[in-house]
């Protein structure tokens, strides 16, 4: 399952990224001069209060949105030169997603939901792969259940299986435990990190949850459109305490 990766190569390089939108009150800067480099196989958490621009950044990194200025290079491909179709093709080949609200197709079974990205990518044995993935997330007994017949935790496990089926280079997770209770949230996080490790996938995780963020190798804090890495040297010595981050949220 593991990708053959070089941990010194960049999975994502962001240079001087800006995003502004025009609102009724005038121009609003959401992201201001963002620079990051994420190595292959790395895991980073982006923390920050609501409205700080975390999700916007995630959208840009995952080639779902277009920046106002700046450059993003995803697995060696500069996004600025791509049109929507090329971006879609890039996403198909290299990235995957996990969402807070699971985003499962509610009329398809667990198995069919997991098969979906593989089928879109033209994978031949999509069904078999999906079964294996569901097996790995402990849902082999729930293959033919519809999302509404599953608990929240189970639905997110289906989403995780779906995220890994195409062996992505980069996995973007948007508050993956946000809709779950602590026990289920922890289970999901365990599963996510375990699979991530096994697959050597680069993980970009957006969260409010410092506890979850701490499980990533790096934590970046987003505030007022600026990104910093306060815990880079020593997480415990950082002047922003976990309580403080929680307060900000």
């Amino acid at each position, binding site marked *: 399952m593991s990708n053959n990766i070089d941990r010194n190569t960049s999975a994502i390089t962001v240079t001087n990224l800006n995003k502004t939108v025009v609102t009724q009150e005038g121009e609003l800067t959401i992201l201001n001069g963002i620079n990051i480099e994420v190595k292959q196989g790395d895991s980073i958490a982006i923390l920050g209060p609501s409205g700080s621009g975390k999700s916007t950044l995630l*959208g840009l990194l995952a080639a*779902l949105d277009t920046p106002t200025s700046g450059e993003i290079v995803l697995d060696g491909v500069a996004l600025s030169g791509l049109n929507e179709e090329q971006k*879609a*093709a890039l996403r*198909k080949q290299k990235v*995957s997603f996990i969402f807070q609200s699971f985003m499962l197709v509610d*009329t398809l079974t667990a198995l069919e939901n997991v098969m979906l990205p593989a089928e*879109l990518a033209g994978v031949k044995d999509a069904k078999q792969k999906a079964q294996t993935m569901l097996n790995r997330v402990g849902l082999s007994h729930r293959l033919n259940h519809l999302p509404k017949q599953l608990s929240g935790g189970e639905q997110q496990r289906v989403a995780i299986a779906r995220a890994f089926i195409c062996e992505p280079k980069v996995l973007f997770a948007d508050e993956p435990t946000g809709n779950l209770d602590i026990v289920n949230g922890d289970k999901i996080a365990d599963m996510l990190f375990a699979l991530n490790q096994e697959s050597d996938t680069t993980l970009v995780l957006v969260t409010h949850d410092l506890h979850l963020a701490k499980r990533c190798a790096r934590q970046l804090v987003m505030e007022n459109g600026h990104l910093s890495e306060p815990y880079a040297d020593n997480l415990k010595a950082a002047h922003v305490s976990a309580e403080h981050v929680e307060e900000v949220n």
Partner: protein
Amino acid sequence: MEWQIAWRLFKRELAQGQLILIVLAITLAVLSVTGLARVSERLQVAINGEASNFIAADRIIDSPVELDSQVLTVADELGLAHVTNMQFNSMVYSGDKFQLVTVKAVGEGYPLKGDIELSNGVTRALPSKGQAWFENRLGGLLGYPKSIELGNSELSLTEEISRLPDAGFNPFASSPVLLIRLDDVAATGIIQPGSRVTYLYQFTGNAEQLTAFELQAKPLLNNSQRWVDVQSGDSPIASAVQRAERFLLLASLLGIALACAAIGIAAQRYCQRHYDVVAMLKTFGASGKQIRVLFGLHLSLVTLLGIALGLLGGLLLDIGITAFLPPEIAAYSPPYLRPVLLGVSTGLISAFMFSAYPLMRLLAIPPLRVLQRQLEGLQLGMWLHLLLSLAAMALLGYLYSRSLALTMTVVLAVLLLGFLLSVLGFVMIRFGHGIGMKTTNPFQLALAGLRRRARQNAVQLVGFSSALVLLLTILALRQDLLNEWQKQLPENAPNYFLVNIAPEDAKPLNDFLSLNHINATDIYPVVRGRLTHINDEELISGKQAENGAEGRVGISRELNLTYRDTLPPNNKLLEGKFNQAADDVSVESGVADRLGIILGDKLTYSIDNQSFSVKVASIRQVQWETLQPNFYMIFTPEALAPFAYTSMASFHLNDAQLAADGSLLSANQVVLQLIQQFPTISIIDVGAMVEQLRQIIDQVSLSLSLVLALVLLASALVLIAQTEAGMATRQRELAVLRTFGASGWLLRVSTGIEFALLGAIAGLLAVIVAEFALYMLKTQVFELVVYMHWPWWAITPVAGAVIVAILGVWRCRQLLNMSCSEMLKAG
């Protein structure tokens, strides 16, 4: 791969009931088109078939001279069956008795349609050579001789005719009919150059042959030759059939429009439900092409299922209706091709045109929606959607009805509704700002709800109102048409005509009729005369005009003129005043139009070689369909006093009525007595024809009721589709209100009021549009009297409020009974 995903989505969504609405909407559109087209074609073929029995053919060319052989060659080339007949008046002799008869000399193959009814049963045979069949009146007049002399021939009288299929309806054809073979005519030596004779060429064939024949043969005819079909003018059935056909067309058209509205709403719902799926698929890298193929296939499957179910339903509908039809109608089975093709194209066109805009929006959903749920991407104006929908409706309408007037009326009505709704939408948004969300007063809560959902409500109102408009239009037209027919053919429509009533017989006849409790129409004096000049300009004949003569073409035959002081019943004065001065004449509007006669014109007539002039004082509209004596020209008694006249009248008589009046005699016995007492009066029995007419009208009424039922079904579907569409947002709002402490009672009442207000507004709009549509339809298509339906203005808004409120609260009942957490979770 996309095919597999599309099929899987289709299968699952179908099983989970998510596609019911859109499939049902397409099914209904296809079902109503296929079913109604089939039923109406069956009725049309049957009605025309039954009616062509009236003229014993599908088409007749009526000519004073032998027809150009080219016309018959055309008929032969097209494969039409045809037969040549001749008709002329002549004297027949039997011993010392003689009688003027109408000789009908028929060719082999007569009658092409219908049967000859003899006194001893129905036959398809013809008299043998040297034989003549006689109308029963003639037998009585001549004392039932074995043979008669006609010109140089002696013919044996072998059979008594009860009714000829093309006996037609002309109360002035007072001489009895003698039926002989065409090849016996020459031997009689009666027909000489210049003899007055009518050639009747009868044709029959299928619809395409007849259309081609009409196109090729009509230009070959001259002015003195008349083209006759079942629907041409004078036939009393013609206008009934035409109106019924148009009504069926219109009703189906409106049915389609409704089903299309349902498809439109359902398609929008369908697309909205897939916004997240598309965003997710795009996020996972699906290309634009993959999404297009996937949803194209998905929607095609939905459409195909709808079409298949619709065709099945349409055929079942046809079978169901046929079971209720009388066997002679049910026996007609026109080909399935057109109804099926119409159904399939309706399904395809409506599904794709109505879902084009929602689908475009669906495909344009940005992948970023997975993170920002409010994103909807493409915001093309609603005008595009409306334009596409209107185009689809107009295209379907025209395809189906092939009538521009009908199609335009529907399109104009839709435009009016759209205009009213946009005004209303503007008013609601502009003036509703002051209304807050007080959670204590259900009325204010309802108003706030209405304002908040102004845009959505405008869309919902389209559905509610169009359903109501269609219902009202169909109801009103159906009622008007039935009333109109009922008026023409009341239960006591005359079934006997009396003609050739000598002036001295008028009084004794009146006495006889009242003694037998018979209510006859007025007795109309009849004077035969010819119109020779208009404003001193001599009128020319059609033949003269054809030969290059200049001038106004008159009526090249003698007219039946009458006189009376008062306007006859069933006549409507259009212009002027009815016969005030002695030299006034009242002219029928059709003939006035044809001859270019206007009020004040001086008309000169020749009666018994005497010439006299009168002034046009009024123009009348005559309902030719009524079985009453009707006249082109009505004079004052003074004007026609100098001339000899006979009279005519008509009355209704049946056994039941006689029995009710305490008479011991049957209708036949009374008529026999009448004949014996007044041997010179001719009695024409039109009972069979009246019966036939009534039967046709009954059949048409049945189809009208059926159409009404279908429209009701379509309306219900639109209403359900409408409430369905607003459920999701409503649920969220209810959840919030509940959370903030609104009581169940408050929510139920405010929801009820909100729906009731919507229903009332829809009702009001519907009345306005329905009155407009009815005005257009009655003036442009149906030629019916226009009047306002005042009670509707009160009833419809109330009924709309009640129906929509009940439906809305019923739809929301689950939501209203849920707890907060259930609601929030479900949302």
